[in-house]
Each structure stands twice: as structure tokens, then as C-alpha cells.
């Protein structure tokens, strides 16, 4: 369909016929649902690991990383298919995507900052450590220190 009110738009998007469109939407919906179900399954797996006797911190971290990647995949499908960003011209896509690259620095810097603040407080503010460290971790943290001493 032409847009008479918008002469500045040079190339009108070629809209797919109904059959192709429906197929594409159905495919994306199923994909988003499957990813969400996998995410929920991982969430419940993390829950069972936490409930277990000795939770494997590395395994939990890996599962959390997997969920983050799946979330990015979902975001990609929503933006490129549902919001049709993938159909726009390259220059326009770049003006949206390039500024968002700031998030790479943003996330790393602020998470690292939070983590560093925790380490500093645990080192210099014993009251903070004693009142907030979960009891199980106290025991778990005590053990490796002894091992280290043994080696030396």
C-alpha cells in the first residue's frame, strides 16, 4: 500500500503475502515460547540445585549465563521480527544499535564496582561481614583457608 502523506519515504516496504506472513509470525511465536520454556526449566533446575546438600556455585553460574544468552536471543527476535527493525535500511539500524553498545561497558563497570564494594566492606568492615554473610558460607569459606595454610 502506498503512503501518499509521506513522500519522503522512497522505497515502500514490500509486505509479504498473508501465507508467508502468517508462517513467519507463527514460527517466531513458537520460537519465543520454546525459549521461555527452556528458561523456566533452567530456573527450576537452579532452584533444585540450591535446595540440594552442597550447591555447586559454578554450575549455577553457568546456568545463569545460559539464561542470559537465551534472553538476548529472545530480544533479538522481538526487535528484528516483531518490530521489523531487520527490514529497515542499514544506516537506520546502526543509529539504534551502535549507541546500545554502551551497555557492554555499562554492565561490566557497574557490576564490577558493586562486587569491589562488597570485597572492600568484607575486608575492612567486619561487622558488615558478620551480620550479612549467610551461615553456610561462613563454614564453606573457613575450609579453603585451612587447606591453603596446610600447603604452605
Amino acid at each position: 500500500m502506498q503512503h501518499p502523506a509521506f513522500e519522503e519515504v522512497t522505497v515502500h516496504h514490500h509486505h509479504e503475502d498473508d501465507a508467508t506472513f502468517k508462517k513467519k509470525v507463527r514460527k517466531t511465536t513458537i520460537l519465543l515460547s520454546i525459549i521461555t520454556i527452556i528458561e523456566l526449566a533452567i530456573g527450576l533446575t537452579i532452584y533444585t540445585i540450591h535446595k540440594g546438600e552442597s550447591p555447586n556455585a559454578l554450575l549455577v553460574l553457568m546456568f545463569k549465563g545460559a539464561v542470559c544468552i537465551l534472553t538476548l536471543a529472545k530480544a533479538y527476535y522481538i526487535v528484528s521480527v516483531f518490530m521489523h527493525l531487520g527490514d529497515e535500511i542499514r544506516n537506520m539500524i546502526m543509529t539504534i544499535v551502535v549507541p546500545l553498545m554502551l551497555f557492554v561497558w555499562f554492565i561490566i563497570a557497574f557490576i564490577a564496582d558493586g562486587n569491589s564494594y562488597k570485597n572492600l566492606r568484607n575486608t575492612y568492615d567486619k561487622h558488615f561481614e558478620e551480620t550479612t554473610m549467610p551461615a553456610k558460607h561462613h563454614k564453606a569459606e573457613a575450609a579453603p583457608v585451612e587447606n591453603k595454610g596446610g600447603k604452605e
Partner: protein
Amino acid sequence: MATTTVHQTKWWSGGKSPFNMEYGKLMMWYFLMSDAFTFGAFLISYGSIRFSQNFWPDPNVVFNAFPGAGHANLPLAFVSVMTFILIISSVTMVLAVHAGHKGDKEGVIKWMFWTIIGGLAFLGCQAWEWHHLITGEHAVLVDGKIDLIGQTMGGNPWGDLVEDNTALTAALNNTSHETLVHLAHEYPTGGTVVAMEALEKMSDGQLAGMVDITHAHIRETGPIAFGGYFYGITGFHGFHVFSGVVINIIMLIMTQKDVFKNRGHYLMIEKAGLYWHFVDLVWVFVFLCFYLI
């Protein structure tokens, strides 16, 4: 081929949009990009505070309730319903935009209607969840006594589980009558539930003896920042859903009044659609940060 046409066009020679896009739609994209930074900043601030704490509540413990399921432990169940509601309403929005491209007024009305219903359903779910978290009181060990607190901006009942039963038994002696009545009713020794009226007449000493402390799952208080971040960010997202619903209702009325038909195009539906998909996009990340990890 469309690609060859694009390649040969002198986009910057004037008289046309260099981005091949109508002004309003382009500005909607830039608004959404700036909004992504706002949400991003909120979520990263939450991440920063979370990494600065030695303990953070497990989402599967906090969000385990389902409407009508009483005290059943159903982690992630309700939030997955909310997530699917938003995904489906995003799909109906895609169908509304597609109907708009074809100039199909009836199709636009039908799919906009279902999108609005989806948005309202999501808001209803969120209202229930907030209400449940604020009013649902949980027993916590604070300053040597047991208190009942809900998840609010100033209190967090989701700290580490207290496993020291001697400390808990001692704490019962300092606990208020009201809390003791509640605990004796919910967690009676031997499992025989005594009526509230009968318990209220008993002395504190009697009540303390009737509480089965090992099954009460009493926790310490958790990080206070949890409530502010959870209500702040899900509230800001909920506000976006609400304004999206309002925009969609306006679009529906305008479609019914033939405004877009007379204009010759349904580009406004496309712009409202971009906003609505963005709301779904943000939820994907809120879901990740608060409920999954």
C-alpha cells in the same frame, strides 16, 4: 530487486528521508532507544547493589505463589503466566499492524481489542502479585524476637533460613502475643490446629510451648534494597504497560472513527505497535533479572 534500488538511491541528496522512514516512526525508535537506557540504568543499578551484598534472596523462594493455590510452593508458575500473556499480546499486535498495512479496518479493530485485553490481564496479574507480596506476612528473627513482616520498601522477610533452634526458642520469649498466636495457629506442635479464639486467650508462656519452631521456616531479614528495586522497576514497567494500554485504546477508537481510513494509511498503529513490542522487550529483561537469576 529491492536491494539494488536501495543501493542506487542517493539517500543524502535531499528531498527524501535518508533513513527511508517517516518522521514519527523514526522518532518513536529514538524514544524507545532512550527508554531502553532508562530501564537499562535501573536494572544495572539493581545488579550493582546485588553484587555488593553477601546475601540476596532466591527468587524461587520469593515468587512461589499462585492465585487460588493457597500456600502451595509453585516457584516461577505465576510469572510464566504473565510472560506468556505479554508474548501473546505482542503477537496480536503484530497481526493488528499487518491488518493496518492491508487497510483492513475490521482486522485492526479485532487484533487491537485482543492486545488491549492482554495488557489489562497482565496489569491484573501484577496487581495480584504486588498485593500478595505486600500483605503476605512471614516470620523473621529480628533483634532476638520473632516478627511478622511483608515484602515492603522498608522490610524484607527473605533472608537466610535460621537453623539455630536454641536461638529461635529463646526468641519466642520476647515475641509479641499477636505473633505467638499466629505462629501457634500456623505451626502447632503435633500438628493439631487450635482455633484462633482459643489461642488468643492463652498466656505467652503457654503459646511459646505450642509452636513447632523447626517447621516454621523462620528467616533472618534480607537486604532492604530488594523491595525498592523490585517495586520500582516492575512498577515502572507496569506504568509502561498501562500507558501502552491507554495508547492502544485511543488507537482503537480512532480506527473505529475512520481517522486512519480517511488518512489513507494506518502508520499510527505501526508506531503504537513499536511501543507495545518494546514493553514486551523490557519485560524479557525484567523477567531475567528478578525471577530467573
